[in-house]
Structure formats: structure tokens, C-alpha cells
């Protein structure tokens, strides 16, 4: 009887404590098998990163083909700069002259009032100048270079990277696809279930070990009883 009680208490202690541990493990992500899985998956992730890094220069090289408007924008900017320069010259020298590279007739056709009203011409010069700088800004913003430089310098525009950071959630997939419950897609089972299944394996291992020990103990008891009976008889 004592042995049965002892065996029972042993059984309770042995089975209860892994159960507690298993309950705790549901919130955690650490177990030895997971470490092994991580060691296997990490090189794959690193390889993916390398591929991503290799892709970047290729993608950078592609935009000249994919985005032809950049050059015309730059050209427009240059043309506007030229016009600004010409207009400024006209404003400085309303009568035209030999130092006007574009010639008086063409200037007057571009800016009819410039020759008559220098003040208006100056105002227009300011306007055009701001327009030119705006064009340059637009041209600059279409190319990756200047934007990158400003980003690296820490001044990524008024709101920094906020827009890009805030948009990160748009890649998250919905669990429900067209009315079909696919709350746990294949990848989800892999990742979401991985820690649980590993914990399950851990629990199972402990249970098997516990059962094995109990079986050995029971075998000892039974063989002891048999020997006692044999000895008494």
C-alpha cells in the first residue's frame, strides 16, 4: 500500500511539474529545438538579405530606363534657368545690346514688358527664379541621388521617414481570403505553430521519460512481489 501511495505521489509530482513548465512555455519562444531550427533558418535569412542587397544596385541601375521623364525635367529646368538669365540681362540692360547673348528681338518676344518696365521685369525674374529653383528641386527629387544624400544627412524632408514607417502595416495579409477561413496559412503554421509544436515535442519527451521511469519502477515492484510470493510459497 505504501508503495502504491509512493508511486501515486511520484506520478502526480512528475506529471504536474512538466505541465506547469509547458503552460509557462506557451508564452515563451525559447527551447533547445527552436535554437536548432533558428540556426538552420538564419543562414537562409542571411542569404535572402544578400540577394536583397544585390538587387538594390540593379534596381538603381534600372530607373533610367524605367523613368524617362527625368531627363526632360532636367532639360526644362536648364531651359528655365537660361530664360531667367536672359530676362535678368534684359532687365539690367533694357535697350539690349552686344552683351546680350540671345539678341534683343528674341528677348522682347519672350518678355514683352521687360524692356519697358524694369521693375516688372525684376518681379518676373524673381518669379521665374523661384520657378527655376522649383524645377531644379523637382528634377532633384526625381533622382535618387540628392534625396539619398539628404536622407543620410538626417534631414529627410519635413516629416523624415514617418510616411514610409507608417506604411509598413500595409504588407500584412488578412487571415480571411474571400470568405474562406484561412486564418492559419501555411507559413503561419510554420511560424506561429513552430514554438508550440516544439514545446509539444518537449512535453512529449518528458512524458515518455516519466512513463519510462514509472514503468521501470513498476517492474521492480512487480518482480519484487513475485519473488516474495515465490519465496513465501
Amino acid at each position, binding site marked *: 500500500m505504501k*508503495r502504491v501511495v509512493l508511486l501515486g505521489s511520484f506520478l502526480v509530482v512528475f506529471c504536474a511539474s512538466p505541465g506547469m513548465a509547458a503552460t509557462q512555455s506557451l508564452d515563451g519562444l525559447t527551447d533547445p529545438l527552436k535554437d536548432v531550427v533558428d540556426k538552420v533558418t538564419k543562414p537562409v535569412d542571411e542569404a535572402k538579405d544578400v540577394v536583397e542587397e544585390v538587387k538594390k544596385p540593379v534596381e538603381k541601375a534600372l530607373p533610367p530606363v524605367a523613368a524617362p521623364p527625368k531627363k526632360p525635367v532636367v532639360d526644362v529646368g536648364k531651359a528655365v534657368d537660361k530664360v531667367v538669365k536672359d530676362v535678368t540681362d534684359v532687365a539690367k540692360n533694357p535697350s539690349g545690346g552686344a552683351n546680350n547673348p540671345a539678341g534683343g528681338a528674341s528677348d522682347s518676344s519672350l518678355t514683352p514688358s521687360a524692356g519697358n518696365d524694369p521693375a516688372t521685369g525684376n518681379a518676373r525674374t524673381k518669379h521665374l527664379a523661384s520657378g527655376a529653383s522649383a524645377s531644379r528641386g523637382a528634377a532633384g527629387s526625381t533622382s535618387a541621388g540628392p534625396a539619398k544624400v539628404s536622407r543620410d544627412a538626417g534631414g529627410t524632408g519635413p516629416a*523624415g521617414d514617418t510616411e514610409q514607417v507608417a*506604411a509598413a502595416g500595409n504588407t500584412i495579409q488578412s487571415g480571411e481570403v474571400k470568405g474562406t477561413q484561412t486564418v492559419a496559412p501555411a507559413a503561419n503554421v510554420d511560424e506561429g505553430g513552430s514554438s508550440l509544436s516544439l514545446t509539444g515535442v518537449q512535453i512529449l519527451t518528458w512524458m515518455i521519460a516519466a512513463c519510462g521511469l514509472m514503468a521501470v519502477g513498476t517492474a521492480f515492484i512487480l518482480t519484487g512481489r513475485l519473488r516474495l510470493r515465490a519465496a513465501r510459497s
Partner: protein
Amino acid sequence: MTLTRQSMIFAALIVGALIVEVAILLWFFDEQGEDDPVIGGAVGSQFDESAACGDTSPPVALSNTRFDDSKRFAVEVPPAWKSKSDGSVVTLRTKNGRAALSVGRARAGDLLQTLEDLRASLRRSYKGLDVISIEPLTLDGCPARSVAGRARNRKGALLNFEGVVVAGPTDNFVIAGFHASDSEPRMKVELDRVIGSVRFYLSEAGDRLPRS
């Protein structure tokens, strides 16, 4: 009471099994305990002026950390996540695509304005933005504010989000973490843990932003 040989062996067996059991449990809970300081780390703690903002030691590239290009911040990448950096933005995603987190630089200046920028960006990017809470906190010793709530993304997924704006040692930073509302509850815990793992670094010259 006489002890037979069998009962001695049986008792020894039980004692041995219990020792093994205790050893297993100690090992198990020891591993659990290692994670606790990270889980209960910087996120959620109240504003603490005494803590130094950012890390003064030079950034050390660990295998599970991802830096931005200029090494002004780093974020720990959990095993089941993948990461990529694009200039000053670092983005992490779970391999199943059910959660994402992104860190980058924010507008310089007042943290409230930075927070407003984040809210405006979230409003532009998501439908039905529902802000549930806005709280002050510290992250890596830096004053920060968090905004949490729900929204629906362009793919129609209902998300829980947590955004954090931080007045870092050199710049203001913005962190935005998202997970699908129907994902496991532990995803939020993990997201919080990743946010809590973000560390900020001074420049090589050791410059800091003047605090108002």
C-alpha cells in the same frame, strides 16, 4: 519497519527521477528567466529623466541586430522575423507576414509634432484609424510617446498598431509596429519586445541633441 532491497532501489529511483526532474525544471525556468529583462524592458516604463538617452558605446554589430545605414539605431531581430534596411529605415516582418515593424527617423524638433506627423501618416495609409491610447514612456532611456489603436490596411486586414516617437540622442525617431488583429495574443507581446529592443546611438563625435 524493514527496508527490502527492492524498496531501497525503488526509493533511489524516485529520488533520482526527482533530481532529474528538478534539473530539467531549473534549466527550463532559467532559460525563461533570461528573457524576462528584455520583455519587461524599456517599453511601458514611465518617463525617467535620470536615465541616459541612447547608448554612448560604439554600436556593435550582433548577429541578431539590424542597424540603419548610418548606425544611429539598432533593432533586435527575433528568430521568426526577417529584416531589411533601406537607408535610414529598418523594416522587420514575421515570416508569415502577420506582423511588421518599421523604424526610421522622424521630424526634428518637438516630439508632439512628430507624434502628430505619425498620426497623420497613419490616417493617410489606413482606413478607419481608431486611436485607443496615447502614452508617454521611455525607450532606451529616451523620452518617447506611444500611440496605439486599430486600423484596416489596403489589403483589408484589420490591424492592431503601436506607434512610438522617440526623442533620440541625435535625432527624433519613429517606430511603427503592426500585427493582424486575429493573430495570436503573443504577437503583441513579441511586438512590444521588439520595440523595446530598439537602441539609439550617438554619432562618432558623440553629439547629442540639446534637450528643451
